[in-house]
């Protein structure tokens, strides 16, 4: 092919693409091209656990309660509910006009089926334990009890009663999680695990699934059967998975996507300079921390753990390493969480200058028998990432004046977390936690002694556990918050984890996209948004 011929083919192709684009625009269908963190592992709500899956499922399905644009819990399929005096029984009244995408009404029985399905061990639900507050749930999931014994009952076609093990003030929050979304029983019975395929999926949310091409896009279209279809402005969504966050930024700048769900943290400064207030970094419900293995001889002494925490200059880490995209943290529970105090818990020394803190820390280490003559050898494990590496290097440097010699142990994420789970011989390990629901319990339970999966510190303090148990039985929210605050103060005193940073979410939002409101849960249902051209 000669150069001229090639050029004419190229021009022809480009012209054809342009005509096609114009023709599409003429149909005046609004399409929201939405960047997502990655592809879902599955679209089966009961098997999901990740945040990118939550975004997709929120558009496809509607639970009993949902989040509004500011992440407040509002009625979803249930238009109202009553809570019994002891806080253990919730009665949900389902909307008359709630229906599936095939036109069938959404019934209370559908929710019974769904909750029983997630608790059935053979479903292989990764996150079933989040719903253990429901009566008998844990017994069914782990103890062989029949799923029909679950505390979820259909009183009539439109009334659903859920009985809990104990009063759980965050129960409604819990139901906003994707594990609380209903499946269409008929579709699951007919297609088995293939009910998630576009040709089979029956959903009850504002959108229906059109196609799913891995690593390319997931397309959804407005569900005409949705009870509030008239108020849904965006006709079509194309979810694009961006493993490479920088790719999303380029496509955003080229006008090809309307929003990005995450940004490359190391480029945040320059992105902010270029894109100004299109960059959104509101606080997020998450904490980045170093876990200290309290069973290790060297880390058994709380004075050592406290000294290690004290000398870390969190402002430096947040501003210089994370380009101001994270917030310095001293406690476990992030600020802005529901059912809790406004002020995050801090140790007394948090407001001292870093030099004073260093002096105090050196004194504590000397008391514990460590210093330049008797250095403390520590191994710091983290999962491989540029920012984790920079953070670890900076912290090792901050620990040097205490006479702490750090060696690093770097693994990929799978190996790192398998090591934390299966082995006892780590000392300091990086980890993080993003809350599933907005309640301090979802953070404080991490270091309970009976939570081996998450308690990487192997922290075992009966006083702490007792406070959490006490809070679990307390129905007065203010009193409960006080009890939980006491527990967090003990956590801060004992320092099984060194809290380093509270997360912020990082998004890019086009000015054309209206209705996107920053919120601590980083939830943005498409049905509340619109696009202006």
């Amino acid at each position, binding site marked *: 092919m000669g150069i001229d011929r090639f050029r004419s083919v190229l021009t022809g192709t480009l012209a054809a693409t342009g005509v096609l684009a114009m023709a599409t625009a003429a149909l005046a269908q609004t399409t929201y091209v939405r960047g997502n963190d990655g592809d879902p*592992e*599955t679209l089966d709500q009961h098997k999901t656990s990740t945040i990118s899956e939550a975004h997709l499922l929120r558009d496809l399905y509607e639970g009993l309660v949902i989040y509004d644009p500011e992440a407040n819990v509002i009625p979803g399929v249930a238009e109202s509910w009553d809570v019994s005096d002891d806080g253990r029984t919730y009665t949900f009244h389902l909307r008359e006009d709630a229906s599936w995408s095939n036109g069938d009404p959404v019934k209370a029985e559908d929710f019974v089926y769904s909750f029983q399905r997630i608790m059935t*061990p053979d479903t292989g639900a990764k996150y079933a334990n989040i719903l253990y507050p429901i009566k008998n749930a844990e017994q069914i999931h782990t103890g062989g009890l029949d799923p029909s014994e679950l505390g979820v009952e259909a009183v009539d076609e439109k009334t659903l009663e859920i009985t809990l093990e104990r009063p759980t003030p965050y129960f409604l929050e819990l139901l906003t999680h994707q594990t609380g979304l209903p499946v269409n029983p008929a579709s699951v019975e007919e297609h088995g*695990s293939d009910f998630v395929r576009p040709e089979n999926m029956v959903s009850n949310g504002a959108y229906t699934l059109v196609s799913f091409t891995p*690593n*390319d896009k997931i397309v959804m279209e407005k569900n005409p059967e949705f009870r509030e279809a008239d108020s849904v402005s965006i006709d079509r969504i194309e979810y*694009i998975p961006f493993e490479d966050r920088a790719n999303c930024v*380029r*496509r955003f700048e080229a006008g090809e996507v309307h929003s990005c769900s995450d940004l490359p943290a190391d480029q945040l400064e320059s992105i902010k300079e270029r894109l100004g207030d299109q960059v959104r970094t509101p606080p997020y419900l998450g904490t980045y921390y170093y876990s200290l293995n309290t069973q290790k001889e060297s880390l058994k002494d709380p004075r050592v753990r406290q000294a290690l925490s004290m000398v870390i200059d969190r402002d430096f880490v947040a501003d210089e390493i994370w380009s101001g995209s994270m917030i310095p943290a001293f406690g476990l529970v992030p600020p802005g969480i529901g059912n809790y105090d406004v002020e995050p818990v801090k140790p007394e020394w948090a407001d001292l200058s870093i030099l004073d803190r260093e002096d105090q820390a050196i004194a504590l280490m000397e008391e514990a028998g460590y210093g330049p003559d008797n250095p403390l050898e520590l191994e710091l494990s983290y999962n491989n990432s540029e920012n984790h590496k920079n953070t670890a290097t900076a912290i090792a440097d901050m620990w040097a004046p205490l006479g702490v010699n750090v060696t690093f142990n770097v693994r990929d994420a799978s190996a790192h*977390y398998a090591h934390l789970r299966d082995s006892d011989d780590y000392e300091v390990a990086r980890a993080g936690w993003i809350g599933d629901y907005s309640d301090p319990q979802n953070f404080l339970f991490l270091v309970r002694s009976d939570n081996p999966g998450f308690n990487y510190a192997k922290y075992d303090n009966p006083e702490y556990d007792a406070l959490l148990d006490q809070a679990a039985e307390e129905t007065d929210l203010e009193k409960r918050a006080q009890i939980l605050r006491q527990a967090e103060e003990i956590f801060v005193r004992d320092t099984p984890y060194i809290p380093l940073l509270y997360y912020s979410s990082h998004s890019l939002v086009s000015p054309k996209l209206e209705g996107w409101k920053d919120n601590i849960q980083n939830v943005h249902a498409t049905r509340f948004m619109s696009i202006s051209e």
Partner: protein
Amino acid sequence: MLRYVLRRLLGAIPTLFLVITFAFFLMRVAPGGPFDRERALEAKVLENLNRVFHLDRPLWEQYFYYLGNLARGDLGPSFIYRDFSVQQLLGNGLPVSIQLGGMALLVALLVGSLLGCIAALRQNSWIDYGVTAVATFGITVPNFVVAPVLSLIFGVWLSMLPAGGWGGPSSMILPVITLALPQVAIVARLIRGSMIEALRSDHVRTARAYGLPMRMIVGVHSLRAACLPVVSYLGPAAAALLTGSVVVETIFGLPGIGRYFVQGALNRDYTLVMGTVIIIAVFVVIFNLIVDLLYAALDPRVRYD
């Protein structure tokens, strides 16, 4: 000839078997498993999942189970993308990788040969130096630099082409250029070297002495001989190009199979990695065979009986 091909294909079976066995056990040596993430799973949940995916069985049993399924043409379910089987994932991605790789291969061959020939015919002129400079540039600048720069220039600044994504011929242009650039450079250098040698060979001198036109001498007599090193280079290179590139696919956000190899390994998605390994191995075997057959066609001294 046909017997030779059959013999080679039969000989490939034990090779593939060894590759599969080696990859299977090597994957399992890596610490961690498909369900180890930032969010630890509850012990019971992990137990359920391991049972569902047969990971609770002894490793040798899993190996024979995998081989048994493979013999029936079943590559198994993906451990991570639970809505898809490995066949479906590879079936979706392979056509994309083949289109991109095939285009890049074609561009590399055409442009590379053209540049190589011109450089050889104008040896030590500014054209020759220019081609050598471009070739050195193409080889040394890595694709993880070329890809974002091209996307930035043509996608963001000039808005001529999509900055990423898959859909329509225009979305192929930048990825194909990125993939082809180093190959163009290598092919140009190989052709230049062998062409210079071919132009000095006896049969070309004879052809000149007969007074054949330069077009014939270069196009028929020299190029055929000059192609040999390119052909032997392109065998494995084509196998690599057609099975996708993790860097190009990730940076442009393309749905090929190149990233499954890396994603799969990082996620410990054992079956997906195995599927990718098998595809790459099959491509390498096939392209090596094609190279050997092309050799026979191009070089009269080579014969297979």
